[in-house]
C-alpha cells in the first residue's frame, strides 16, 4: 500500500505533522505499527489503541481508530478492562520505557502473567523524553541522563526476559532501524493469541543522544544496525562477541491458556450450573 493510502486509511491527517523532535524514532515505530495493522487487515472499527503518558503515548493521537489516552503507566490496566468488556476488539497498547517499566511496571508483569490477549509495543528510547531526559529503568548502566550526571548507578531491566518470566507467550525485540523486521514482529504479535510484547529500541537524539554524545539520529540508527544481532546469528556467536550488543527478532513464542477465554469458560460453567 502506498504511503498516502496508508496515511489516509489509518491516520488523522489533520493532526499531522506530529510533534516529536526531529530525528526521533517514534514516527518510524508508529509507521511500523500501522503497516502491521494493515498487513493483519484489522478493521479500524474493531481495533482499539491504548496509551499511557510520555512521548510514545502521543502516537494514538495520530491514529484513526478508537483510541484511549490514559494516565501515566496505566495503559495496560485500562486495556485489560477494554479487552475483558469487549473481547472481540483487537487491543494494541503503545507505551514507553518510563511508562511501562517504571510507574507501570506492576501492570506489565501482571498482564504478562494473565496472558491476556493484548499486543504491547514499548518504544524504548532509554530515557524520559517528555520531561527532558531523566533516566528510566531501561537506561543502560553508566549512561548519562539529567538525573545521572555521573553515569547511571542502576542496571536496566531486560524487559523481554522480564515478561517471558512473567508468562507472556509472544516476546520479540526490534529496532527503529530494522523496520521490515519490526513490521513482521508486530504483525505476528497481533496475530498471536495471548500477551504479545514487542520492545522496540529507538533513538532519542534530543536527550539521550545528546547527553551521551551519540551523534545525530542517523548515527544512532547506525548504532542500532551495528548492535542489534538477529536471534539466529546471536546463537552462533560466542558470548564475548555479544558483549555490548543485543538480540533482535522473535525471542519467545509459546502457548498457554488465554485470560479472557478462561474467564469466559468460568462464566459459561456457572451459567450452566
Amino acid at each position, binding site marked *: 500500500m502506498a504511503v498516502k493510502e496508508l496515511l489516509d486509511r489509518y491516520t488523522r491527517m489533520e493532526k499531522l505533522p506530529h510533534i516529536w523532535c526531529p530525528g526521533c524514532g517514534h514516527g518510524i515505530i508508529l509507521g511500523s505499527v500501522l503497516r502491521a495493522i494493515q498487513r493483519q487487515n484489522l478493521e479500524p472499527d474493531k481495533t482499539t489503541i491504548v496509551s499511557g*503518558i510520555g512521548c510514545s503515548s502521543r502516537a494514538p493521537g495520530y491514529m484513526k481508530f478508537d483510541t484511549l*489516552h490514559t*494516565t*501515566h*503507566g496505566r495503559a495496560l490496566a485500562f486495556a485489560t478492562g477494554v479487552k475483558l468488556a469487549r473481547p472481540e476488539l483487537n487491543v494494541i497498547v503503545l507505551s514507553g520505557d518510563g511508562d511501562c517499566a*517504571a*510507574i507501570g511496571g506492576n501492570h506489565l508483569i501482571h498482564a504478562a502473567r494473565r496472558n491476556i490477549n493484548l499486543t504491547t509495543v514499548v518504544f524504548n528510547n532509554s530515557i*524520559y523524553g517528555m*520531561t527532558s531526559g531523566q533516566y528510566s*529503568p531501561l537506561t543502560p548502566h553508566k549512561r548519562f541522563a539529567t538525573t545521572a550526571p555521573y553515569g547511571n548507578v542502576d542496571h536496566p531491566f531486560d524487559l523481554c526476559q522480564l515478561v517471558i518470566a512473567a508468562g507472556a507467550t509472544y516476546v520479540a525485540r526490534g529496532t527503529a532501524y530494522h523496520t521490515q523486521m519490526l513490521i513482521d514482529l508486530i504483525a505476528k504479535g497481533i496475530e498471536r493469541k495471548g500477551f504479545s510484547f514487542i520492545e522496540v529500541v529507538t533513538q532519542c537524539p534530543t536527550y539521550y543522544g545528546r547527553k551521551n554524545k551519540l551523534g545525530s539520529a542517523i548515527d544512532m540508527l547506525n548504532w542500532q544496525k551495528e548492535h542489534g544481532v538477529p536471534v539466529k546469528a546471536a546463537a552462533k556467536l560466542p558470548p564475548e562477541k555479544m558483549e555490548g550488543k543485543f538480540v533482535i527478532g522473535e525471542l519467545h513464542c509459546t502457548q498457554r491458556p488465554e485470560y479472557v477465554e478462561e474467564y469466559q469458560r468460568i462464566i459459561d460453567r456457572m451459567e450452566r450450573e
Partner: protein
Amino acid sequence: MAQKVAITGNEAVALAMKQINPDVVAAYPITPQTEIVQIFSTYVNNGLIDTEFVTVESEHSAMSATVGAASAGARAMTATSANGLALMWEIVYIAASNRLPIVMPVVNRALSGPINIHCDHSDAMGARDSGWIQLWSENTQEAYDNMIQAVRLAENPNVQLPVMVCMDGFIISHAMENAEVLPDEVVREFIGDYTPQKTLLDKENPVTAGPLAFTDSYFEFKRAQAEAMIQAKPYVLEVAREYAKVSGREYGLFETYKLEDAEVGIVVLGSTAGTAKNVVDKLRGQGFKAGLLKPRVFRPFPAEELATALGHLKALAVMDRADSFNAFSGPLFAEITAAMYDSGAQTKIVNYIYGLGGRDVGLGDIEKVYGHLARIAESGKVDQRLNYLGVRE
C-alpha cells in the same frame, strides 16, 4: 544583602530549596513542576548542598520516600503538579495524619481529563481536605517567600503539619520576573536547625509510625489533627512577622487591595489577583469603588478574618479556578459564603469559575465581573449565583 534578580517561579523555588538545604528530596518528573527538582538536582550534583536526592519511579513513591525520610527525622521535601499530586493521594493524607513537617511546592496544573498541562487549581483544591497547610502565591516573589516561611511553620512544634506552597503553573513557574532573594546565611538562620520531636532513628526511645488505630482510638487521632490545624493560624502570622524582619516583606492570612472603602469586591487566588489589581486601579480612576482580597492561607481557613474584611461589601464575587462539580459552586465560594453567613453579613455573593485548563483571563474579563457586581449592588439582588467566565457555551 538581599539581591534583586530576574528569575522564574520554578527557579526561585529551586533556589529557596537550595538555601533550605533539606536532608532528603525525592522526585519524579511532571510538567510544569519538573524544572524545580531538575534545577535542584544540579545544585546537588555540583556539591553546593548535601541533600540526598532520590529519583523514584512514581509520585506515589516520591511522597512515600519523603514520608519515610521525615519519619526518620529528616527535613524532607518533594514537588509535584496535578496528576502527580493525584497519584500521591494516599500518602498525602498519611503525611498530614502522621504530623510530618514536609514542605512541597505544588505547581498548579489542571487535573485530567481531558489531559492538559496548563494552570488551574483543581489539583491543590482537590487536596484541600487532606490536612496540609496551603500557602498560595501571586507571583515569583511570593512563591519564594512562602517556601522559606513554610519550613519554619511546618516544623514549629505546636504545628507539626505538612505545607503545600502553591503557585500557578506556567504563569508563575515559567515566567521571568524581578524578585528579591535573601542571602543563603539569612535563610539558614531564619529556618534554623530542625530537631524532630520523635524519630525512627532514636534507638533509646523506639516508636512505631503508622500503626492501626481502630474504633477505640482513630477518632482521637483525627481530633488532635484537627486541633493542630486550628492552632496553626497564629503561627502563620508569627512566622510572617519574623520573616518581615529579615526580608522587609509583610505577609498575612490574606492581602487586601483597596478593600477598606470598597462597595464591591472580588476574592481571587494566585496570579489572577495581579491582573485584577490593575482592573481595580482602572475602576477607581473612574470613581468606582472596587476592591480585592487575595487569600494567602487557604488551610487553615481564616473564616472570621475573611468575614470581617469582606462584610461591609454590597456585592462580592468569589472567583474559583477549580470547579467542585457539585451543581452548586466552586470550593472557595462555598467556604467564604459559609464564613459570611456566620458573621451575619448582608453582602450579596456570586461565584465565578474561571481559567480552567489555562484559559487566559484578561483585564476585560475581570471588568465584566465588576460590572456584574455593580448591577447587583444597585439592585440588591443576585440574578445568577454560579457564573462561568470566558468559556464558549
